[in-house]
């Protein structure tokens, strides 16, 4: 089966190269037959790559420990679900998962669009195939999941080697979010190849219309959603499984996923300006390019070991090839862009600073600045070593210092943007639109100050949250009122039709609402409290309003691990507030320990309890009180719903060109 997997990879590579050549030849000679053959080759390549993934899946499920990837990441006793997720528990397998998704997406794009955009499709296929071929080659030659174990005897002779059992999956990865987090994140990284391919195709064929802009926007939105979900799941995993009390630590791998997200967020905003006003065309192509490159860079960071990180897999020489590939893509696209400059000329100029356009521009500036800061901080160790010979790393403080103001600025723009009209606005109209939200914000500010809040950033953040919340409510309410007047509808009907009539705008506002709630969660960070308690059975310790009593300590065995479990009775201000059972597990394979957190979550605050070990005759308990974390998860949920609403009328506005005619 391993040989079959290798065969599939090789076949897919050959087919993708053929597809690339056929598409380019067909497009330049304008021969439909050759292009059609190229498209079929691309589909066949995708199918072969999917088969290769199937082969690895089979090996995993069949416990074929002769294959090194299976031996290193799985074991007989592993539950079925984790056997599947063990495919991406290690380095080589996650590269194959990457190929698998690339193939699926490429196939989907071709099937969906080949009858619609005949002039662009050969170029789209070409770009997709370059991308696919690159990853196939990496898989086949540098990071092959089908490699077999061999035993090297002292005299240098080699023989196949089949261990009795595998090493098992790293227990830290045995958690539901870790089963779906990597696949979702990978689609979030690799999916940006589709917008990129369409952007390149549009440039090459000098598309005049906006059909391609629509495809690019929708794909970016969908992929952006997945990337966002991936990031959030990663945060959830860190919070619940790693047990250090937080969900974000500015770790290089976290940063790697954040960067493309920031740039694609910028793109999703600035593309609106292009659609409405015919401006920023060059800028948008650059953003699409950057998003794609940062997606590749994300894999590069996790796979190359160039930046030290808790997550990074073992070092590999893959890094060099990633750098070559990125340089190739960057140079190619920039050359193309330079050549197509006249075609991308702006149709209009910025009318006024007091316009929606200019709010969008600032939003872009700030998002890209944030991405740049994250990039700088992440890459600084590597850069400083390269230039000066010593690695200088920057800590979370750097990221916080620069990204907190950026976040607040963005939050402010989230509120301002929707209130300003396109083109230009007069001060009087602005005053009218701003009056109520600003008043609400100031009211909130007064409340916060009276409530005794003194932290500058938190005060600003919560005030802005109130302001933005009010602008969103005002947008919905006034829009509905207009409809009520215009069509004589009742309020609920008017509101519903308003939203469904323009899901893009109102879905966007719901996304903004989610973001506001997330910022409320972020603000809570400033008030995190923690205590380390050394308790004997029956003793009580305190953190914040909580009293924790260690009622019992149990030890025992499960199938794969031994556990030590603290049973803690919690009271809050004297009233019982449940029982928490934080746990420490020691796994049989490799002696790896994992933490299971005891968590009591309320909208006001999370009580987060970790059992860290035994010191002397006391049990060490770390207890955190993390205010407002609840709102972060709630906000992310709303963000997802809002995005889904925005994607809602996919079919209607994505209808083929023929129908528009």
């Amino acid at each position, binding site marked *: 089966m391993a*040989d*079959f997997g290798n*065969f*599939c990879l090789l*076949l897919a590579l050959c*087919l993708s190269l*053929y597809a690339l050549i056929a598409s380019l030849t*067909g*497009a330049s000679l*304008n*021969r*439909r*037959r*050759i*292009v*059609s*053959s190229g498209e*079929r*080759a691309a589909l*066949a390549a995708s199918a*072969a790559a999917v088969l290769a993934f199937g082969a690895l899946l089979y090996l995993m499920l069949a416990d074929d420990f002769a294959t090194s990837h299976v031996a290193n990441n799985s074991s007989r006793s592993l539950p079925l679900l984790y056997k599947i997720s063990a495919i991406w528990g290690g380095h080589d397998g996650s590269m194959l998962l990457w190929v698998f998704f690339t193939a699926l997406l490429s196939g989907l794009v071709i099937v969906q669009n080949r009858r619609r955009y*005949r*002039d*662009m499709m*050969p170029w789209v296929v070409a770009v997709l195939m370059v991308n696919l071929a690159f990853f196939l080659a990496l898989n086949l030659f540098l990071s092959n999941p089908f490699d077999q174990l061999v035993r090297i005897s002292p005299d240098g002779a080699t023989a196949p080697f089949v261990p009795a059992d595998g090493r098992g999956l790293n227990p830290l990865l045995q958690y539901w979010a870790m089963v779906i987090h990597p696949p979702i994140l990978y689609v979030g990284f690799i999916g940006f190849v589709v917008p990129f391919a369409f952007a390149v195709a549009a440039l090459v*064929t000098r*598309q*005049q*219309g*906006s*059909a391609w802009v629509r495809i690019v926007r929708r794909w970016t939105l969908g992929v952006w959603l997945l990337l966002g979900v991936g990031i959030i799941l990663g945060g959830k995993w860190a919070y619940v499984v790693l047990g250090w009390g937080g969900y974000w630590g500015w770790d290089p791998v976290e940063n790697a996923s954040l960067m493309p997200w920031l740039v694609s967020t910028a793109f999703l905003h600035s593309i609106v300006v292009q*659609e*409405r006003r015919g401006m920023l065309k060059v800028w948008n192509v650059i953003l699409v390019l950057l998003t794609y490159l940062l997606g590749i860079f994300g894999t590069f960071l996790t796979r190359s070991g160039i930046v030290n990180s808790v997550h990074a897999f073992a070092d590999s020489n893959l890094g060099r090839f990633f750098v070559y590939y990125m340089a190739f893509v960057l140079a190619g696209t920039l050359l193309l862009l330079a050549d197509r400059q006249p075609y991308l000329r702006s149709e209009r100029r910025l009318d006024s600073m007091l316009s929606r356009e200019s709010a969008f521009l600032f939003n872009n500036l700030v998002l890209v600045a944030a991405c740049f800061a994250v990039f700088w901080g992440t890459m600084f160790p590597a850069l400083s070593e390269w230039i000066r010979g010593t690695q200088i790393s920057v800590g979370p403080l750097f990221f916080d210092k620069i990204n907190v103001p950026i976040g607040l600025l963005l939050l402010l723009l989230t509120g301002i943007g929707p*209130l*300003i*009209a*396109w*083109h*230009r*606005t*007069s001060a*009087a*109209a602005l005053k*009218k*639109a701003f009056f109520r939200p600003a008043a609400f914000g100031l009211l909130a500010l007064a409340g916060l100050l009276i409530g005794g809040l003194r932290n500058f950033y938190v005060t600003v953040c919560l005030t802005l949250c109130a302001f933005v919340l009010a602008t969103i409510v005002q947008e919905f309410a*006034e*829009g509905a*009122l*207009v409809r009520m*007047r*215009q069509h004589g509808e009742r309020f609920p009907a008017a509101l519903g039709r308003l939203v469904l009539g323009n899901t893009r705008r109102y879905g966007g506002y719901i996304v903004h609402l989610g973001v506001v709630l997330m910022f409320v969660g972020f603000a809570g960070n400033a008030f995190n409290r923690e205590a380390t308690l050394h308790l004997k059975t029956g003793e009580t310790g305190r953190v914040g309003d909580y009293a924790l009593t260690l009622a019992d300590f149990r030890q025992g065995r499960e199938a794969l691990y031994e556990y030590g479990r603290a049973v803690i009775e919690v009271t809050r201000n004297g009233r019982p507030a449940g029982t928490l059972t934080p746990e420490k597990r020691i796994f049989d394979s490799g002696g790896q320990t994992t933490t299971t957190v005891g968590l009591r979550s309320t909208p006001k605050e999370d009580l987060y309890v970790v059992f860290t070990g035994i010191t002397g005759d006391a049990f060490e308990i770390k207890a955190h009180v993390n205010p407002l974390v609840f709102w972060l998860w709630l906000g992310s949920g709303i963000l997802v719903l809002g995005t889904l609403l925005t994607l809602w009328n996919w079919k209607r506005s994505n209808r083929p*060109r023929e*129908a*528009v*005619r």
Partner: protein
Amino acid sequence: MLWIVCAVAVVTAGGFVLAPLFRETAPGPDLEGETERDRLLERKTACYRNLKDLEFQFRMGRLLEADYEGLRAEHRAEAARILAELERLGAPGGKRAAGGGPGGKKGGDGTRCPACGAAAAPGKKFCADCGKRL
């Protein structure tokens, strides 16, 4: 066994991929892109959408009367230019082009808006495209 499977796979893939090369050309022009007309129709749709949104923003009180009038005049002028271009390329044929405005309302044989020419469903008091009273 493996060799047989692989050989079958190669032959199948090869046949699938190479078949179009030996087929008579499929009907339809080679690799046609969008035409001038497509582009204009798209611009027309976008222009009407912007106009409609402008009107909505005005009703929400986001724009003052003077700003609104000015911007609306600009949009109208652009719409007129696009329509003139379309005219030059030949009269739009069929229902679909007539309803080319946003949404392309069903029941296109009803009344037509005097201001923008978009089809309006029977019984509506206002044009769905530009908001004018019918």
